[in-house]
């Protein structure tokens, strides 16, 4: 990627406000009326690549059920290969990571106690009393003591185009504006390098999210296409295949170069 200069201030503290729980139809459940009022929690947004720990990122992907493959296996597949992830990260032009304090990521149940996502030994959910986390609450959040809860990256040719991939936010902190914060930061990094042709591949579910971030269909009405030639769709002998998630993609055959019509005897 060459020497891309990073801006001097690329780690910032931000605040997000939690809301009361609502279901998809925006109805409040009766038990939610006992919830604490909306709280403001600090998050730490960073564009520094060294703040990202690939194994931790892999955990985040797994917690979000996110696959790096566009056609992920339907059964729960093993987490992505860390080394491959490292390669992808090192060749991404923009990397945005978002951290919060560990206890802020946990769900709060109606008693105001924090419900840990871990299970205690007998299999029931652990409940951690609020006061026990007082010291944690007083510490400012930073990448070193925070938990990675959000991520996004972009790949670019640093000239004309860029593509955004792998924008994820941990489930318990969704719908708080964090995803948009990440995308906005990516966009800012790209436009500051004069790249305005920015694309994002999204599935049906992700479409609304990106629309809210200011994305839309192509102005020139181009069609998005992906290589999906598989053994199932094309038959033939001597097929080389490559696995990409669920699909076994057919590798185009090696083309034999044209034989010259007028071979000249070689004299060495």
């Amino acid at each position, binding site marked *: 990627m*060459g020497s891309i200069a990073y801006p001097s201030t690329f780690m910032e503290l931000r605040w997000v406000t939690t809301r009361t729980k609502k279901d998809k139809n925006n109805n409040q459940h009766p038990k939610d009326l006992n919830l604490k009022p909306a709280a403001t929690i600090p998050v730490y947004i960073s564009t520094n690549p060294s703040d990202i720990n690939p194994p931790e990122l892999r955990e985040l992907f797994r917690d979000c059920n996110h696959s*790096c493959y*566009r*056609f992920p296996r339907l059964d729960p597949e093993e987490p992505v290969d860390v*080394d*491959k992830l490292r*390669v*992808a990260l090192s*060749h991404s032009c923009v990397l945005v990571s978002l951290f919060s304090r560990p206890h802020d990521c946990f769900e709060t149940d109606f008693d105001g106690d924090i419900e840990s996502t871990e299970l205690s030994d007998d299999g029931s959910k652990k409940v951690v009393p609020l006061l026990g986390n007082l010291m944690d609450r007083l510490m400012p959040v930073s990448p070193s003591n925070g938990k990675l809860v959000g991520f996004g990256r972009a*790949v*670019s*040719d*640093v*000239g*004309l*185009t860029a*593509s955004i*991939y792998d924008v994820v936010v941990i489930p318990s902190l969704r719908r708080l504006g964090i995803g948009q914060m990440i995308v906005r930061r990516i966009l800012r990094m790209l*436009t500051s390098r004069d790249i*305005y*042709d920015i*694309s*994002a*591949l999204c*599935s049906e579910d992700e*479409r609304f999210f*990106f*629309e809210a971030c*200011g*994305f839309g*269909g*192509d*102005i020139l*009405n*181009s*069609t*998005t*296409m*992906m*290589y*999906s*030639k598989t053994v199932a*769709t*094309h038959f033939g002998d001597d097929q080389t295949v*490559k696995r*990409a998630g669920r699909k076994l993609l057919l*590798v*185009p055959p*090696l*083309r034999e*170069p*044209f*034989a*010259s*019509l007028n*071979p*000249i*005897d*070689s004299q*060495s």
Partner: protein
Amino acid sequence: MLANNGVPPSLCSVMSFDSQCQLSNQLLFPSTLNYGFVKVTRKVKVSRHKVNFWESIRSGFLKDSTTQVIEESPTIEEEEEPMPEEFVLIERTQQDGEIEQIIFSSGGDVDIYDLQALCDKVGWPRRPLSKLAAALKNSYVVATLHSVRKAPGSEGIDEKKLIGMARATSDHAFNATIWDVLVDPNYQGQGLGKALVEKIVRALLQRDIGNITLFADSQVVEFYRNLGFQPDPEGIKGMFWYPRY
């Protein structure tokens, strides 16, 4: 120097090593990593092809004339970029005895001005040259097609013309997007575009890069469909950012 004496040109491999090869030093991770690539001693299948004896001598079409004719490719431990290849895709003889060769190259050796002229020819809007140059430099694969004409009996420089190009950006691991596939209108309809795209897809898949995307104008959707691309597979769509001023 070809190793065979008095025998019609046998298959031997030609690799052109130009400066495009030496890009590995920019990577940030330690070299002790095992990437999980396909573990064979020869990572890239070398394309074997007939080398016309006069070609290897003249090599006028190679910019810095560093053609090395070798018997087998050296084993390279961890190459990050696809090995640059260059070979003759098509050769034909015109009625006046002139020979025209279409040369495929993935070395990324593109003259920006030639490219600009080619984009004009196919009717694309102009883009700033510096941006174009940067984009090519930072693309993972740049494949080009050149036409080389040799008039019979001429000993001078062959006429070399850029007639096609395609490039792909990638994160080198999971995702890749193919951009800017173009072929000179005079050379369209011969399968050249198909060759370009197939080559790029092959190079990407050899690297286990499985998410290969492109954004096709309506008139070329069928072209890509025939190459194995599917529109909006499983509801996946590409969206673009529109700044609101």
